[in-house]
């Protein structure tokens, strides 16, 4: 017999639809602003409070329709449910509002509210619904609770609700999201970037005038700095404005295309030059599903770029390129500076002189509902979902782009030839490269012809005055004017005043040309200077990158030696641990073997640590593992420098007895041995250490290490060599036993450097233990 079961959902879902999905702060803010827009707000304030303190908060406050208790329970807390998508969003809305402009919804997945988690771990929500007898509902959410135990179910994580009498934010209706315990740092630069991004959030061209939605940015901590700025783009606080397309209605080539829905859908495309219509074409749409879309593409020649830069305070390329809006709100990452989801630059790389890339155009694609299949990916930063509908949109966009390209290349030569007027090359011809001569009029006629041959053509309209302008332009160009004047003079049939008038007019045109030339030159010089500094920065960056990428940089011998030894140490540690881990799975562990391996790993870690001390004090021009040192001098120096580290009360005495032995040893290993011996002395209550050096025959050196501690215990003194075995240890009086590996490895390290160690006895030099180390010479 079957019985029904249900899915359980882990609290980890919060991250999946929150901070893991919305992985960008700006996108998180946009999602919340979008929600305000969809809630019919006319104003949303994005407030950064105490931004440079630990109590920093982000507050998003709108005057939208707000929520009551039911809305909170059945919408806000109902994950992935979207009343906007279901169409019931307006059901509870007052009739007065229904006569307002009906906005199409920007967000409709029911997860945008989790953007709050991206921004901060604490959320305080306060909301008042725009209805009679409304109450102030508050909700406190601690997102961290969802992370405590992933075995907890999502639905069991509580959020606190309360109904209060008075709003803390003077709300009449609307919603406030107060986000604290911020996850990222915010600074002036980032806030200015947010402001820029918020400006691009809304496509002003798709909103009609009755639909008023304003965004305000408020950062009190930056008001003082704002006062020092005059440029709008450098001021944080205030209303966000999108002035881009106003700026652009200037001397540029522009194409506008839209799809008109009807019995048979029609694509209407108009090309403008400096605001004047060049042609307008209507074609039957070959696209099956593409409706309610519109695009504008502006081509920016050099002059247009200059004008843009002067008015906007930044280069067009810094602003962006082709933006995509759905229902008036921006979809990322279209238009973002470093992104090219429409693959324009790839295409341009295949034909630099034939195609336009992201650096030469600016514009937008606008999608309006109903368009359910042109939708954003859940992550919000990856654009539209790539389905058939998307690809139709893509093809249509490129159709328009190609028309701009055709016009730009064949008619106006990229706008490079500066004519007295609107950058159309109205001379009869221009030379392309060294050989090809293009006849403008002829090309224009060909263009119109090819448009008129379009198989889906419904109608074609060419601005009648364009041809007239063409004629006029050829007549009024400076060269033509001068040649006309010459002709007149030569003909001996001229009116002096007329000639003077012609000359004056020609002079004016020359003035204009000169001014345009000067501006261009000035711009070019500025660009040159900027490029030089950019080049310098680039060189510096390249050097940095070269440093990072180079396989071998010439290091000082010190650094070389350091790296060499550290690498060897750490490879031993790494491989040692790998072996241990493998052994744990592979075979039963012998405890002694295990200890030995761990001890070895520890030793190498100790060596690495020791290196850090040597770095600051030692001359590294030879490898620290292979140094020729006078052992006596080294030991003396080592104690003198390090005695403070051991014990404030420890006394050291060294008797050199004119001994000296130069030996090639690892000073690192010797240091570790010395540290180990001293550590043992400390554990056994010594406060005095004596070192006696003596030559043994002509080659060897003896060092007697003695302390005044408790000496070796009786148990071990009968078989004193056992203290050098692994694991042999005794509990020291100070309560801290050793690991039983120190002397074991000390002996090993000494043997490697051609030295030996043994226990000499108690009470030999001082009252405690004495150990003798013999260094063999060559």
């Amino acid at each position, binding site marked *: 017999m079957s019985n029904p079961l249900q899915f359980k959902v882990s609290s980890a879902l919060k991250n999946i639809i929150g901070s893991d999905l919305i992985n960008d702060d700006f996108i998180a803010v946009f999602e919340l602003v979008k929600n305000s827009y969809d809630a019919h707000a006319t104003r949303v304030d994005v407030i950064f409070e105490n931004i440079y303190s630990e109590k920093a908060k982000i507050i998003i406050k709108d005057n939208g329709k707000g929520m009551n208790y039911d809305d909170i329970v059945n919408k806000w807390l109902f994950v992935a449910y979207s009343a906007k998508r279901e169409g019931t969003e307006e059901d509870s809305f007052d009739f007065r509002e229904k006569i307002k402009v009906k906005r199409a919804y920007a967000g409709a997945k029911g997860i945008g509210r989790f953007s709050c988690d991206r921004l901060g771990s604490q959320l305080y929500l306060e909301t008042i619904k725009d209805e009679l007898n409304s109450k102030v509902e508050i909700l406190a959410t601690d997102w961290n609770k969802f992370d405590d135990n992933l075995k907890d179910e999502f639905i069991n994580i509580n959020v606190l609700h309360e109904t209060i009498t008075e709003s803390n934010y003077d709300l009449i209706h609307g919603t406030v999201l107060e986000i604290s315990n911020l996850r990222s740092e915010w600074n002036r630069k980032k806030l200015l970037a947010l402001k820029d991004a918020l400006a691009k959030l809304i496509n002003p061209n798709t909103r009609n005038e009755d639909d008023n939605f304003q965004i305000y940015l408020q950062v009190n901590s930056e008001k003082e700095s704002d006062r020092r700025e005059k440029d709008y783009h450098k001021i944080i606080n205030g209303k966000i404005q999108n002035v881009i397309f106003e700026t652009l209605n200037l001397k540029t080539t522009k194409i506008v295309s839209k799809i008109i829905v009807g019995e048979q859908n029609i694509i209407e495309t108009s090309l403008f030059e400096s605001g004047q219509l060049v042609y307008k074409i209507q074609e039957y749409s070959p696209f099956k599903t593409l409706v309610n879309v519109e695009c504008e593409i502006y081509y920016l020649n050099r002059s247009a770029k200059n004008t843009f830069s002067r008015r906007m305070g930044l280069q067009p390329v810094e602003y962006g390129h082709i933006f995509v809006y759905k229902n008036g709100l921006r979809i990322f990452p279209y238009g973002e500076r470093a992104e090219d989801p429409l693959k324009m630059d790839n295409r341009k790389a295949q034909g630099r002189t034939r195609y336009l890339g992201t650096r030469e155009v600016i514009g937008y694609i606008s999608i309006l509902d109903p368009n359910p299949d042109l939708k954003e990916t859940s992550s919000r930063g990856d654009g539209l979902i790539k389905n058939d509908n998307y690809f139709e949109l893509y093809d249509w966009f490129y159709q328009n782009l190609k028309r701009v390209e055709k016009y730009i290349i064949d008619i106006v030569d990229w706008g490079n030839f500066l004519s007295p007027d609107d950058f159309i090359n109205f001379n009869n011809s221009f030379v392309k490269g060294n050989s090809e001569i293009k006849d403008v009029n002829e090309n224009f006629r060909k263009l119109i012809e090819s448009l008129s041959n379009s198989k889906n053509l419904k109608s074609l309209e060419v601005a009648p005055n364009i041809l007239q302008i063409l004629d006029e332009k050829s007549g009024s160009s400076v060269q033509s004017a001068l040649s006309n004047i010459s002709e007149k003079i030569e003909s001996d049939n001229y009116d002096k005043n007329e000639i003077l008038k012609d000359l004056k007019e020609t002079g004016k045109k020359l003035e204009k040309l000169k001014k345009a030339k000067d501006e261009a030159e000035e711009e070019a010089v500025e660009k040159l200077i900027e490029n030089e500094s950019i080049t310098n920065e680039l060189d510096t960056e390249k050097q940095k990158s070269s440093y990072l990428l180079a396989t071998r940089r010439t290091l000082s011998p010190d650094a070389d030696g350091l790296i060499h030894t550290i*690498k060897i*140490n750490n*490879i031993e540690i790494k*491989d040692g641990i790998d072996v241990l881990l493998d052994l744990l799975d592979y075979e039963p562990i012998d405890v002694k073997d295990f200890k030995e391996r761990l001890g*070895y790993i520890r030793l190498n870690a100790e060596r690495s640590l020791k290196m850090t001390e040597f770095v600051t004090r030692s001359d590294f021009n*030879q490898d620290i593992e292979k140094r020729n040192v006078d052992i006596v001098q080294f030991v003396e120096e080592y104690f003198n420098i390090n005695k403070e580290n051991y014990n404030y009360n420890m006394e050291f005495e060294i008797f050199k007895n004119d001994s000296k032995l130069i030996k*090639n040893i690892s000073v690192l290993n010797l240091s570790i041995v010395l540290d180990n011996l001293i550590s043992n002395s400390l554990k056994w209550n010594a406060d005095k250490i004596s070192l006696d050096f003596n030559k043994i025959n002509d080659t060897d050196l003896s060092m007697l290490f003695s302390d005044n501690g408790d000496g070796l215990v009786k148990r071990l003194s009968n078989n004193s060599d056992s203290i050098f075995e692994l694991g042999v240890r005794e509990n020291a009086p100070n309560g801290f036993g050793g690991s039983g590996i120190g002397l074991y490895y000390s002996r090993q390290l000494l043997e490697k450097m051609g030295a030996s160690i043994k226990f000499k006895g108690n009470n030999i030099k001082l009252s405690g233990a004495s150990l003798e180390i013999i260094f063999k010479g*060559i």
Partner: protein
Amino acid sequence: MSLTRILFIDDGELKSIIDKIKLNLRKEGFTVVETIIDLSQSEFQIKSDDDSDKQVLDFEKIKNTLRGYFDEPFDIIACDYHYANDDLDGSKILSWLKNISTTEKKRIRKAKFCLYSSEVDKVITKTTTVDEITKLIKIRLTDLYKREQLAEGLSKLVKDNKRVDLNKELISELEKYGDLKFKSVYPQFKGKTFSEIAKEIDSESHHGVLFSKNLIEISVAHFSDLNNE
């Protein structure tokens, strides 16, 4: 279990690396026996000629030690490239070893020669002349490993080297019964012990080569006979 013998020539620590190789290969059915020539030992040091108290590696002492291994059947010789700031480097050691063992037809010549270093890019910058590169080619260097990948690299080399070397196997088998005396089939070797014959084969003497060929022919003939039964 297959036995693999590796000779390491290094002045640094190798314990963990060797342990790792052994464990890796044990799982694959190989037993690894290592021999280490530890160049950090004083027996390989000599006082420098320039009267300073500097001690350097004594190449002659290293050569003498290596000579003691000429007849050992090592499968791999892995040599560290870099020895502190010594002028001697691993490629010089391997070059000498390869040259002399080939000339003298010593068994060690059949091992795979590998270099490794904790600073491979230093190796590369040093081997930019034609001479240096030629030297490496002549060594027939199997590989140059980064030290941190030495365990994995050598493990893989052993595993991938499963190809049977007939000569090597023949020598090994003959040596197992080294005292037995050969009686017939190849008259030139009549009366020789198996181990003497193994030496002939190993040194690629004229009769050593002919004997190997002869043995293969006889073996195939024997298989044919078995097939016909």
